[in-house]
């Protein structure tokens, strides 16, 4: 977790296959609705190498889940407008046919969902669901697939997997269910694993076990992992890099080290401030971000964060008129904020950090 080499910015020009294992370029996912155009993801770019973990952090409705679904091609195809590029291991996915993307899903890229109870089909046994996932991509007999399923269940730490393989999801405990979900996701050795709030629905004690499991498995399979969460603790535990999303855009991109110790975006400061810390006085424990997340239909002019930002006045009216670009302020550390770098560092050091 000390490797801070950032994988920032496109290394190659648009339209060309990148060197990185996964590269997202200027991804936009918009949904036209009766009420207006919902810009769930609005120009997002990042890279990810195999064996590394990217944490995407943000509030509900910041577009992080849509991003992950977009990569897998699981967004609502009927009414979504998608633009930009997604390169996975040299293959572009946005322009690819649904069939092609489907064949990659589950095999090359897999996903772990938030609520394992609702994410597993209640009418089929856990084993059947893993077998199904395996057999879609591997033409093997049922027996072989079943053996593989039992094997997978064993590997994710489910006791007596040969018995539990025939149980239904509701017969599992929450943690076990999430393990089974992971087993299913990993059944075809995916090279990219996206975990969308994998621990949110679980007991705290189980959370740690699941995170350990993901980490172990990642090492074992050498996959690239995207960890989507609103829990900075999870990110700190697992990620190499962090992408902070706000209103469908990247607010800050940095290594875990930098993000926690030298964050440059006021929103990131807010996130850090909202983390409960037991080592503080009760009254100081939480410094919530004031205001509510913006509507994705009417994103505020200028910096999307400006209505909630305590420092917007330091930029004259720039924050309310000009949308800040994501720039590499420090090598390997990008931020989208009009505040001068020095000012940001100063505020962090003097005003924010002491209170955390």
């Amino acid at each position: 977790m000390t490797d801070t080499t950032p994988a920032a910015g496109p290394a190659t020009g648009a339209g060309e296959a990148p060197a990185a294992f996964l590269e997202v370029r200027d991804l936009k996912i918009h949904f036209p609705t009766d009420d207006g155009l919902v810009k769930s993801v609005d120009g997002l770019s990042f890279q990810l190498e195999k064996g590394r973990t990217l944490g995407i952090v943000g509030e509900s409705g910041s577009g992080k889940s849509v991003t992950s679904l977009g990569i897998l091609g699981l967004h609502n195809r009927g009414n979504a407008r998608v633009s930009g590029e997604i390169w996975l291991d040299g293959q572009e996915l946005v322009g690819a046919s649904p069939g092609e993307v489907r064949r990659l899903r589950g095999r090359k890229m897999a996903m772990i969902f938030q609520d394992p109870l609702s994410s597993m089909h209640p009418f089929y046994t856990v084993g059947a669901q893993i077998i199904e996932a395996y057999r879609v991509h591997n033409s093997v007999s049922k027996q072989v697939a079943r053996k593989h399923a039992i094997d997978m269940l064993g590997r994710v730490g489910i006791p007596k997997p040969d018995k539990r393989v025939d149980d239904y999801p509701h017969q599992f405990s929450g943690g076990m269910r999430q393990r089974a979900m992971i087993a299913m996701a990993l059944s075809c050795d995916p090279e990219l694993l996206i975990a969308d709030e994998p621990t949110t629905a679980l007991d705290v004690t189980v959370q740690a076990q699941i995170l350990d499991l993901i980490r172990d498995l990642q090492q074992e399979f050498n996959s690239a992992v995207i960890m989507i969460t609103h829990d900075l603790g999870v990110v700190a535990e697992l990620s190499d890099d962090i992408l902070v999303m706000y209103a469908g855009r990247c607010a800050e991109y940095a290594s875990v080290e930098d993000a926690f110790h030298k964050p440059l975006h006021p929103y990131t400061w807010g996130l850090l401030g909202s983390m409960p810390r037991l080592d503080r006085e009760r009254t100081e424990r939480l410094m919530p971000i004031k205001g509510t997340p913006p509507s994705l239909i009417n994103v505020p002019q200028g910096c999307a964060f400006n209505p909630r930002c305590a420092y917007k006045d330091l930029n004259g009216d720039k924050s309310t008129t000009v949308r800040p670009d994501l720039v590499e302020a420090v090598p390997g550390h990008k931020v989208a904020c009009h505040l001068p770098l020095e000012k940001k560092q100063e505020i962090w050091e003097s005003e924010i950090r002491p209170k955390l």
Partner: protein
Amino acid sequence: MAAPLEVTGSDTEAQPEAVLAGVDGKAIQGRSLGQIAWMRLKRDKVALAGGVIVILLILLAIFGPLLVQSPLAYHQNLIDPTYNRPKTGIWHTGISADHLLGVEPGTGRDLLARIVHGARISLLVSFLATLLSVVIGTVLGITAGYFGGWVDMLISRAMDAFLAFPLLLFAIALVAVIADGSFGLSGNGLRIWVLIFVIGFFNWPYIGRIIRGQTLSLREREFVDAARSMGARNSYILFKEILPNLVAPILVYSTLLIPTNILFEAALSFLGVGVIPPTPSWGGMLTLAVPIYSSDPMYMIVPGVAIFITVLAFNLLGDGLRDALDPRAK
């Protein structure tokens, strides 16, 4: 207002695309559910059309009888005695400037007038029956949902039993069993109340079930807990906290129950246990059409289409209201 990141499980998470946030966050905060619903409904042209027809029908039922001729007056000069059907008009319908929808075979009574008067009966019976269902259904539904335990068991069982009853048979039987002159009432004075009672009484479980379900979930909500923790009495919680939140589903399902009841009333009339002639009723007109539909199809079409349009209008409005008030209950 605090915006903790932990908003899992709340409504907004389930609706990630922030549709609920509306066009612009600020304006929407001041809007009541009713305003939001109205806004949505306004955009639903089909439902609006249904609503307009419903209003027209209600006006027609109230004021129409003042405008049309007597539904009882015979015009036997229009009837061909040999075939016992209207002499004139396309397909022997008797349609003319005086009788826009034609006349009834055998009697020459004006069909438009009979349709308009029939609307009055149809709407009166179905509205009052719906009201009865809603009252019973709401009271019992709330009671079951709120108090739970054996009360819920009892009421839920009763609802199951009601749903398992062959309703139409029961309704017919009930109407037939209550002889004229019972309860000191006679003729249509008795019959209409019997119809309202029978239709309303047998349909309450549909409302009851929905209200019970809604109450069950409301009961667990924070504001109820809050009220309870502050020592509010049950009656206060029921009427001040829960009932207002049930207005939307009650409105939606009442609107959807009305067309069902219109059909129910028409069916009873069709089977000969509806309002008593000569009072016109749509179902009763269809009954008379049965033996002659092959020689006089128009006589069957007119009341049939009247029922169809009315029921369709209510269904459209009901569907629209449901979508507007409860977008997820599609």
